[in-house]
C-alpha cells in the first residue's frame, strides 16, 4: 500500500564526494528490494519529487535508507537536510526485483550510484540461501563495500581509473568472470550502457536478467506517463515508475545511447 507521509531525517551523512547516506523514519510500509520512494525536496520553486531507490529498510520500525548523489538542485536540497528535519515521502513505489528461487545462483552487477539499491537485494538473496556473486564498479571512490562483504556474498570491485580492484567497469569485470561458474540470474543497476552490457552477457550465458532502470519522473504512481521506457511489447513505451523500475532485460530496447 502506497503512503504519502512526513518522515523525519535520522541521519544524512556524506560518505563519498557528492554521495549521501540518509535514513528516514516514517510510516511502517512494506517495501522490497528494487522499489523506490519519491522524496520531496520542498520549496516553492521545485515541484517535483525525486525518485530514489531503497538501499535498505527496517519496515517494522519504519526506517528507510537511501544512498543518493547530490547531483542537481533537488538532490542538493535533500543533502542539506539535517537530522531531525521533516521530509515528505511517497512510498513504496514500483515493482522491485522478483522473488528468489531455491538454490539460485545470482550475479549482481552495479555501477556507480546503481550500487546502493543492490545492497538490499544482495542481503535478501544471501539471507535466503542463494549463491551470490557481486560485481561493483566505481569511477574511483567505492562505497558500501564493507556492508556488501558482511552479507557473505563474494564481492569483486572495479574502478574506471584502476585505483582499486579490476581496472575497467563492472561489465568488463563480470565478462571476465562469467564463463565459470554459471549463473541462473543476473541483476543489474547503474548507467544504461552497463545494463545493456549485463543483459548481453546474461543472454550469452543463458541466465535470466533483471535490470533496474532510471528515468525522469513526475508523479511516481503511473498517472502522468512521463517516465517512458522503450520496450519490445505492443505498447512501445512502458512506465518506469509503475511497470518498473525493474524490468526483465528481454523486454527492453537498448537505444543508440546505450551502446558502449
Amino acid at each position, binding site marked *: *500500500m*502506497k503512503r*504519502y507521509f512526513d518522515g523525519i531525517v535520522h541521519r544524512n551523512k556524506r560518505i563519498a564526494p557528492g554521495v549521501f547516506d540518509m535514513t528516514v523514519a516514517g510510516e511502517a510500509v512494506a517495501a522490497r528490494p528494487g522499489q523506490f520512494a519519491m522524496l*520531496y525536496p520542498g520549496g*516553492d*520553486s*521545485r*515541484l*517535483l*519529487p525525486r525518485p530514489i531507490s531503497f538501499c535498505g529498510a527496517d519496515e517494522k520500525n519504519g526506517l528507510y535508507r537511501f544512498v543518493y548523489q547530490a547531483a542537481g*538542485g*533537488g538532490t542538493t536540497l535533500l543533502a542539506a537536510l539535517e537530522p531531525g528535519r521533516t521530509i515528505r515521502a*511517497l512510498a513504496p513505489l514500483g515493482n522491485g526485483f522478483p522473488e528468489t528461487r531455491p538454490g539460485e545462483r545470482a550475479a549482481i552487477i552495479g555501477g556507480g550510484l546503481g550500487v546502493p539499491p543492490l545492497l538490499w537485494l544482495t542481503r535478501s538473496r544471501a539471507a535466503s540461501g542463494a549463491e551470490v556473486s557481486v560485481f561493483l564498479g566505481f569511477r574511483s571512490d567505492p562505497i558500501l563495500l564493507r556492508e556488501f562483504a558482511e552479507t557473505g556474498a563474494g564481492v569483486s570491485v572495479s574502478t574506471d581509473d584502476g585505483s582499486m580492484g579490476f581496472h575497467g567497469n563492472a561489465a568488463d569485470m563480470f565478462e571476465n568472470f562469467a564463463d565459470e561458474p554459471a549463473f541462473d540470474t543476473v541483476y543489474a543497476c547503474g548507467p544504461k550502457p552497463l545494463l545493456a552490457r549485463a543483459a548481453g552477457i546474461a543472454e550469452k550465458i543463458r541466465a535470466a536478467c533483471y535490470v533496474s532502470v532510471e*528515468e*525522469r*519522473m*513526475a*508523479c511516481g*504512481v*503511473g*498517472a*502522468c*506517463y*512521463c*517516465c*517512458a*521506457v*522503450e520496450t519490445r511489447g*505492443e*505498447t*512501445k*513505451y512502458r512506465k518506469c515508475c*509503475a511497470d518498473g523500475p525493474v524490468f526483465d532485460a528481454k523486454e527492453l530496447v537498448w537505444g543508440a545511447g546505450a551502446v558502449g
Partner: protein
Amino acid sequence: MADTSVSLAGVTFKNPVITASGTFASGREYAELTDLSRLGGITTKGVSMEPWPGNPPPRVAETYGGTLNSVGLQNPGVERFLAEDAPFLRGCGARVIVNICGHTVDEYAAVAEALADSGADMLELNISCPNVKRGGIAFGTDPERVREVTEAVRKKARQPLIVKLSPNVTDITEIARAAEDGGADALSLINTLLGMKIDIRRRRPVLANAVGGLSGPAIMPVAVRMVWAVAKAARVPVVGMGGIMTARDAIEFIMAGAAAIAVGTATFRDPNAAVSIAEGIERFMDENGINSLSEIRGIV
C-alpha cells in the same frame, strides 16, 4: 454551510475542483492516496481512436516554479479505455470528463461517438496539446479549424462538450468564439505554454522532443488573465486552470470568471492536492460569508 456545488452546461458538480487531463490518468493510480469521491470531477488522460505510442524520453523537465512535459498523448486507445477505465470511473463518486484527441476531424468525431455509452458526464475536446505533430495544437490555433472540429464532434457527442484551448495563440478570445460557433457547451483553459530547457553540460535540450508544455505556478498569472478575458467574451461557462496550487489560487480563477477549476501539476507535489483545494474553497466561503460561488464568480 456554504454550497460549493457548481453547474457546467447542465451537469452539476458537488464542488468546482476537477483534475486536469494528463495528470491523473483515469484516477485509479491515485485511488489509494486520495478520496476520489471528494473531487468535483475527474478529467481523464487524452483518449484516441487507436493506441498512440507517445514521444521518446526524457519527457519531463523541472523548471523554476513549473514543469515541462512532452508526453505526446500516449494512450492505449478508446477500446481499452472502455474496457479497463470506464467501469472504474463510473463508480468513482466524482463527475467524469473524458478528454478526447485525434489526428483528423473524423478521428475526433469517432472517439466521441465511441464514448456515447461510456458513462462519461462530459467530453473535453483536446485541440491544444503542444506535444503532437498532427492534431492537438495544429487544430487549436486556427479559428476556422476549431469551429470545424468542434462542430463535427458536437454532432457525434452524446454528452455536453468542453473545448480545451491553447494559450499559444495571439488572441485566445477569437479561438473561444470559434469554439462557441462550432457548438461548444463549455470552454477550458489554459493548456500548457510551449517552452524549452537546455542542458548546458550536454549542450542540447533536456526533452528528447526539444520543446514541451510548461505547467505549474509559473504560468498562473498568464492563465488568470486569459480566463478573465475569455469569461468576459464567451457565453458558455469556463473551466479555469494553469498552475493552481492552493484554494486561494482557485478563488482567483473563480473571481476571474471560471465556473469550475482544474488542478494538475499540484498533484505531483501532493497526491491529495485537489481534495485539499476543494476543502480550502469551502473554508474560504465559510470565512467570508459566501453561500454560493456565483456570488464571486467573475466579480473582477
